[in-house]
């Protein structure tokens, strides 16, 4: 749901103060230099103080916002929230004038303070500051405002601002995930599209389960989803507007259709179409509805995904005899195989920041989720399972979501960061597969 206009304006109001201006003259370079090249990856200890409030209602909101921010930052694996019971300065004076020695004393390296207001127009306003404890500098100062029902988005935006300042990369908390929810007996499986915030909140179903659905994918605006729905035996490609619920058929194609996905500019959909038993990659212009065939090979070509600049497409193909990953130019020229290791590779997805391609790999009876560079180098396996499939990128390209199913168990969504060390299960009301992570939501 879009935030009201005032919020949009306020979101851009950045009260940066004391921006670091620490440059010193080059003469210092003559001193002894000691090089350190092996950083740690321990979570940064951060103190998240519940925003100050002046009545019980506001205190309740403040506590919930602090809870969401804490869960977001800790869930990223990059931060460790310090237990509030250890806080020394807790009389409200920390909002504007933290006693940094008190915060150093409990091991905090960053500190978040703020105030929350319930306004008479029904809005919530939060003013918050991020402080660097070692130097006493204010790193971020912002004011955000929204309707009370939207308080979670306010907490997500606050989390994104803190994450962005401390990591230098954009956040991914104000986002949603769409996936296929599955229920019922094996022979009469009901599959519905469902959507939720990235932290599992605000869950709802988007389709009624009458028809089988597959492969939901977000548009670049995060407002629309393209997916496959089977009407009888026939798959159709739909576009669904999330908020209005309005949907339209993109096309009914002769033969089978698979894996539709938007281009980065949102003007095209790329997919595979199987005709006469031969699956090829096609792109469709959403304005003219004209389709263009991009691959011409008797092998099965499928799972296309655009590079973020739209110039290239990654896909998988069994043209070498086994399923491998290939990259081609967006017009279908210059096809080049990039995966050269043993095993079958499928569902390649280009990272939103362009530096990596995520994939599913099947080797020696086990499934793996991994990443490699677009030239095929630097393959790293991040997760594995009896069945693990369908990676999707968070918009900042540092976290992946996928689904995993243990032998005899139920399918569940998981997120994992690029180190492969921070794997977290997502809680969903039904079995869950085929997730797609939205871009950052627009104001």
């Amino acid at each position, binding site marked *: 749901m879009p935030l009201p206009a005032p919020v949009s304006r306020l979101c851009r109001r950045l009260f940066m103060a*004391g*921006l*670091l*201006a*620490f*440059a*010193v*003259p*080059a003469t*210092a*370079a*003559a*001193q*002894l*230099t*000691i*090089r*350190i*090249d*092996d*950083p*740690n*990856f*321990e979570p*940064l200890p951060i103190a998240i103080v519940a925003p100050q409030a002046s009545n019980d209602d506001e205190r309740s909101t403040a506590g919930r916002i602090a809870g969401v921010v804490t869960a977001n930052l800790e869930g990223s*694996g*990059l931060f460790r929230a310090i237990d509030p019971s250890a806080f020394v300065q807790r009389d409200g004076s920390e909002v504007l004038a933290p006693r*940094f*020695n008190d915060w*150093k004393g409990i091991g905090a*390296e960053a500190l978040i303070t703020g105030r929350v207001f319930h306004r008479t127009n029904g809005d919530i306003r939060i003013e918050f500051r991020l402080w*660097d404890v*070692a*130097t*006493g*500098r204010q*790193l971020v100062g912002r004011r955000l405002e929204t309707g009370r029902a939207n308080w979670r988005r306010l907490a997500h935006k606050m989390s994104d601002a803190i994450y*962005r*300042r*401390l*990591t*230098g*990369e954009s956040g991914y908390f104000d986002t949603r995930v769409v996936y296929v929810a599955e229920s019922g007996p094996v022979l009469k499986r009901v599959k519905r599209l469902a959507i939720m915030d990235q932290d599992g909140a605000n869950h709802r179903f988007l389709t009624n389960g009458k028809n089988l659905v597959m492969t939901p994918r977000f548009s670049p605006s995060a407002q629309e989803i393209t997916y496959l729905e089977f009407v009888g035996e026939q798959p159709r490609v739909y576009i669904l507007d999330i908020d209005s619920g309005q949907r339209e058929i993109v096309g009914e194609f002769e033969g089978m259709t698979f894996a539709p996905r938007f281009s980065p500019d949102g003007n095209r959909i790329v997919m595979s179409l199987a005709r006469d038993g031969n699956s090829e990659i096609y792109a469709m212009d959403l304005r003219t509805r004209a389709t263009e065939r991009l691959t011409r090979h008797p092998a099965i070509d499928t799972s296309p995904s655009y590079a973020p600049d739209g110039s290239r497409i990654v896909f998988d193909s069994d043209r070498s005899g086994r399923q491998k990953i290939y990259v081609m130019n967006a017009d279908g020229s210059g096809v080049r195989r990039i995966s050269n290791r043993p095993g079958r590779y499928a569902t390649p997805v280009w990272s939103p*920041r362009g*530096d*990596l391609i995520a994939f599913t790999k099947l080797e020696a009876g086990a499934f793996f989720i991994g990443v490699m*560079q677009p030239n095929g180098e*630097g*393959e*790293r396996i*991040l997760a594995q399972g009896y069945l693990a499939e369908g990676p999707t990128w968070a918009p900042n*390209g*540092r976290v992946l979501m996928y689904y995993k199913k243990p032998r005899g168990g139920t399918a569940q969504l998981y997120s994992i*960061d*690029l*180190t*492969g*060390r921070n794997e977290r299960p997502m809680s969903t009301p039904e079995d869950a597969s085929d997730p797609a992570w939205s871009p950052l939501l627009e104001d």
Partner: protein
Amino acid sequence: MKPPKNTAKKQPPKAVKKPPARKDPLDSVFKTVGKLKQSQQSDRDRTAARTPAGVKTAARGLRLTLSEIQAVRRQIQPCWNFPAGAQNAGALRVRITIWLNRDGSVRDAKILDGADTSRNAKLRAAADAGIRAVNNPRCSPLKLPPEKFDQWKVLTIDFDPSKLSSE
């Protein structure tokens, strides 16, 4: 801006713990560890070759020894935290000059020029991580021989995460 207030010197000496020997937590993930170890070694070799020429000595025999330099490296390293999974880590190298008190506590720390942290959010975050490392009470005061104070009263710490680069 005023130099950060020094709290480290208020710490009792026993608060200075020798950092535990650390295994790179990503060893199990990144496949390039072998190469990295090599580069680390070659860095030490380079430092060894460079140090005598790079230090103005007041008197023969008062230069910092390699083991003293290595001790500083080992002391600061545990406090240098870098966001895991950063893109193009090689571009996020930051040099920070520190001014030290005689007791080894950090009086001031500034980013050496050349790092355009005002326009590059990633570099700014990396620079902040370096500033946090040298100011962290867990890793300060630096244990250095007082008789060689002139040698180490100003040091430049070169935080170089380039071996993490996946490019």
